[in-house]
Structures are given as structure tokens and as C-alpha cells.
């Protein structure tokens, strides 16, 4: 597949790498838009899954195979299932009207729209700032080869340089698993 990318990038179109980026990016945006705008919650979850898949494809196209496949395995396989189960097993989408602190419906809608827009602007601003002021934005574009991010190098890095966070994460995940199993267990009738 890298062979193919190299052949494609030597084409006279110098928009080739951007074109390879634009298609998954378009699907990601479509998925994200669908996730917030669709009425049916399961449709929203499935559009979010489309975003995850597009992100995985982006990682693979950039040469980070390991991260891309792990993204597909973890996000599409596990996180999506979690979201779908959560939607199915909880009474979703019913907002009790009596919980509304403001008396008028239009006022609460307007306020929530303003609040949402402010949060979105804040998040977008932080992201853009961190991207444009980061050192990676200035670096030269290196050609993509298979040797830049093999799984072995990632493994070595994890187990030699970042061992303590790895073990901490493992302990945290185990604790979460045991806690979830305990919470879900039925109480014995005494």
C-alpha cells in the first residue's frame, strides 16, 4: 500500500497527499455533523462511528499503521458498542419538562444555544491555537516509509520510557473493571 502511495504521489498532481487527506476528513466532518444533528440517537451513534472509522483511515494514510488499527479496534469495536449499549439500556431522549429552571421554553432554548456556541468556540480556539503554535506545524514534510512507526518501536518506547504511566493505566483499568462488575452485581436477598 505504501508502494501505491509513493506511485500516486509521484503523479503530476501535487494535490495528491491533500486529496488523500480530504476524503477521510470529509467523512469525518459528515459523521460529526450527523452525530449532533440527527433526531434518532442510534443514528447519531452510527454517524459517530463513521467519524471514528474516518479518523482511523487518516492515521493509516499518514503512515501510523499501528495507531490506525488500534483506533479501529478500540473505538469502533469497543467504544461504539459501549455507546450503543448505553443508549439502548437507558431511557434516552426524554427530558422532563418540569426540570426546566426557566419558565419559558424559548428562553431556555436561546440560552442553551448561546452556551453551546461559546463552548464550541472555546474548544475550537484551543485546538487551532495548539495546532498552529506547535513545533510540528513548522517541520518539513518527511516522506512516509514503513519504518517510521513500526509496532516494535512503539512497544519499546512504551515499556522503556513510559513504563510507569503504562502500569498506572493498567491498574486504573483493572479497578474500573472490578468496580463495574461489583456495581452491576445484584444484591443478595438477605
Amino acid at each position, binding site marked *: *500500500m505504501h*508502494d*501505491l502511495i509513493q*506511485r*500516486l504521489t*509521484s*503523479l*503530476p498532481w501535487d494535490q495528491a497527499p491533500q486529496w488523500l487527506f480530504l476524503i477521510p476528513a470529509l467523512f469525518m466532518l459528515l459523521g460529526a455533523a450527523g452525530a449532533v444533528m440527527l433526531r*434518532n440517537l*442510534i*443514528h447519531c451513534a*452510527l454517524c459517530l*462511528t463513521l467519524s471514528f472509522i474516518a479518523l*482511523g483511515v487518516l492515521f493509516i494514510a499518514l503512515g501510523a*499503521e*499501528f495507531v490506525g*488499527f*488500534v483506533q*479501529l*479496534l478500540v473505538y*469502533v*469495536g*469497543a467504544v*461504539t*458498542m459501549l455507546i*450503543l*449499549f448505553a443508549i*439502548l439500556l437507558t431511557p434516552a431522549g426524554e427530558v422532563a419538562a418540569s426540570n426546566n429552571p426557566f419558565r419559558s421554553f424559548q428562553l431556555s432554548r436561546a440560552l442553551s444555544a448561546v452556551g453551546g456556541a461559546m463552548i464550541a468556540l472555546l474548544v475550537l480556539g484551543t485546538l487551532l491555537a495548539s495546532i498552529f503554535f506547535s513545533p510540528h506545524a513548522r517541520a518539513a514534510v518527511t516522506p512516509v516509509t*514503513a519504518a517510521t512507526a*513500526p*509496532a*516494535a518501536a512503539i512497544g519499546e518506547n512504551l515499556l522503556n520510557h513510559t513504563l510507569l504511566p503504562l502500569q498506572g493505566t493498567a491498574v486504573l483499568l483493572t479497578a474500573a473493571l472490578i468496580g463495574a462488575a461489583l456495581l452491576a452485581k445484584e444484591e443478595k*436477598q438477605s
Partner: protein
Amino acid sequence: MNFLENLPLATKKFILDLVEWVCGWFCSKLGIQLPGWVMPALLTLVSILIVIVALIAVFMVMFALMSVFERKILARMQNRYGPNRVGFFRWRLCGLFQPVADGIKMLTKEDIVPRGADKIVHFLAPIVMVAPALILPVILPYGRGMVPIELSSGILFFFALGAGTELAVFMAGWSSNNKYSVMGAMRAIAQMISYELPLVMSAVVVALVAGTLSPNGIVEAQGGLSFGFLPNWFVFTPWGFVACLLFYIGALAESNRSPFDLPEGESELVAGHLTEYSGFKYAIFFMAEYVGMFAINGLLVTLFLGGYQAPFAFLDFIPSWCWFFGKLAFLAFTMVWVRATMPRFRIDQMMQFAWKLMLPMSFAALISAATWYYTGRGLLGWALSILIVGVPYLILGYFCFTRRHTADNRRYLFSE
């Protein structure tokens, strides 16, 4: 027999040369001069197309043959004949044309979509199921130098695509607007997720010893003989044997085959998540299940059974791709054999088996493999690794599964 061994690659090279010659002939006839990048790009495209067409053709033919051989072998194990009539122009051919009849039947059935069903998701579910299943076999090494796509983290790719299957099962069950379909889909997903863990752990055990995630590398790590007479296949080591069994059982569960076919058994919840599918969509689900089964069996052959390698050097006259498909056929036969032998599991028995026996055993296999590897593969390593897998197996097997359990305290809600 070098000719047979090189036959697939030689065919591909022949087709590429033919395409190049035909293009060159056309260009010289019409007098146009192509830019320098056209021919390599065209040849790359044709080479990719050859690989795709060959893979899909081989797997479709294997699917068709498997469906009829499964029925015939199941029948013989149950003391009856299988389908033995469908032939070709008055030759009975022992019923081997049955898939043609089945295919025609599935294609000509009416495609019924329930009125309350979610049309887009209902339509997309078979597609989401079959697309990853057809991509799965692309990383397996079918012979020496015959990997369609060489990926350095091929094993991870395999499991990442397997996640698409679970999504498709959920989409199928939920979109049918049928509470039994949803229940069936939930049970199917629970089963798939539970058995994916021992499956991935067994693959990790192999990756530990082979030192690489690439399927070609794993096959090459299984070359040669140890102690002079035993092939180096991972299945012939204690931890490898256990990991192979765990992988095999996980493969049965991932492809929803008996004895794990609770999601799609005919007497359970009608057909579970497939209830509202008829005609070609049902055929697509069926095909995705079988192609997925072949792909995961192919991975088992690659990981544990030495891939395309012959066990002993004197058997090398049989081509490497014959060995691969022979081992694959043997594994498919054992899957049919297991289906004929065992009754279906109940959902709680399935869950207990996955979490209480298979997951601890896969960790034991990991520790055993590490011990074997780091004590230098000698006799001490063998003895220690047998102990490390054997003791937990006997303890877990005896205490969890062979004793009679007292019935747990059931709460009957509506009985007086």
C-alpha cells in the same frame, strides 16, 4: 516441483506482461506516446485487480464448496446421505452443484423489509458485515512470496476489522424493529466481545515468541525442526497447543458456529438478529460468516500450524499454497466435526466458559510461552511450560466445570 509452486505468481506475471504488450501494441498502432507515469500506474492497478479478483474468486468457490461439503459431512456423521441430486446436465455429480441451486433460490426470493424497520440501517447492515469479512484474507501468506498485501502489523489489522462484524450485528438486530432481533443481537455481541479477548491474547502469545506482528515473519519463525524430529510449528509446543485450542474455540465463537450458534440457531429467537432478512441479504450474511470463518482459520494456520510450510523437508514437493489450503481444509473439516458432535451452549454457559476458563488459560499460556522462550527452548523450558499451563487447566476444569453445582436461588416473580 518448482513449476507448480510458482504457478500462481507465474500466472500473475504472465497477465501483467500481456497487458503491457497489448497497451504497447495499441499505442504503436495509434501512434500516440504515453507519458512515463502511465504504464507503471496501469500495471500497479492491474496487479491490484488481479489480486482482488483472485482472492474473491477463490473465497467464493471455497464458500460454495464448503456449504455443500458441510451438509454432506454432517449428514454422514448423522448416518444419512447429504444432498446428492443436484448435478449438471443429467450427471448427478454427487450433489456438488447444490450451491448453484441454493444461490439461485436466494437470489430469486422476495426481499421483505418490515414496515417499521429503519430502512437505511437495515440496508447497510449486510454491507458493513461483508465488506470487512472480504478484506480479512488479504494479509495471509498463502505460499512462499504470496502475500497479497504485506503489512508489518497484519495481526492487528485482522482484529481491527473483526470489530466491524460486531457493529454489523448490532445494526442488523436493531434496525429490524423487532424486540427479539434486538435481544438476539445483544446476545450475539456479548458472545463476540467475550470471546474476542482470549482470541487476541492467543495471538499476542504467538507475537511474543515470534517477535513480530507480521504474518510472514510469524510463518518464517516456525521453520525448521527442533530436537531433530519435531517441526517448529507453534502447535507442537505446550503453550502453543493451549493457545491454538483457545484460538480455535474463539474462532468458532466469532463466526457464530455451533456450538456457539445461539445468536442464529433456528430454534432460538427465530433467527436472532437475522430474523427480518430474506433473500439476497440473508445470503450475504451467510457468506460473510463463512468467509470470516475461512479467514480466521487461515490466521490459525499462519499463527500455529506453520502457514505454508511442510512439516518435513522431504514433503516439499507439494507446493506451499497446497499445504496452506490443505491445512485450511482440515480445519474446516474439524469445525464441521465439532458442529456434528456438540449441542448448543446456553448463553450463561457460554459466558462462564469465556470468562472463567478461557481468559485465565490464555494468561497462563502467555506466562508459559515467556518461560519457554526465556529459558532457551530447552527441556527445562518444556517442563516448566507444561506445568504452567497444565495445573491451572486441571484446577479450573475440575472446580468450575465438572462438579455438580447446586441450583442457585431463583426468584420466580409471578408464581403463587
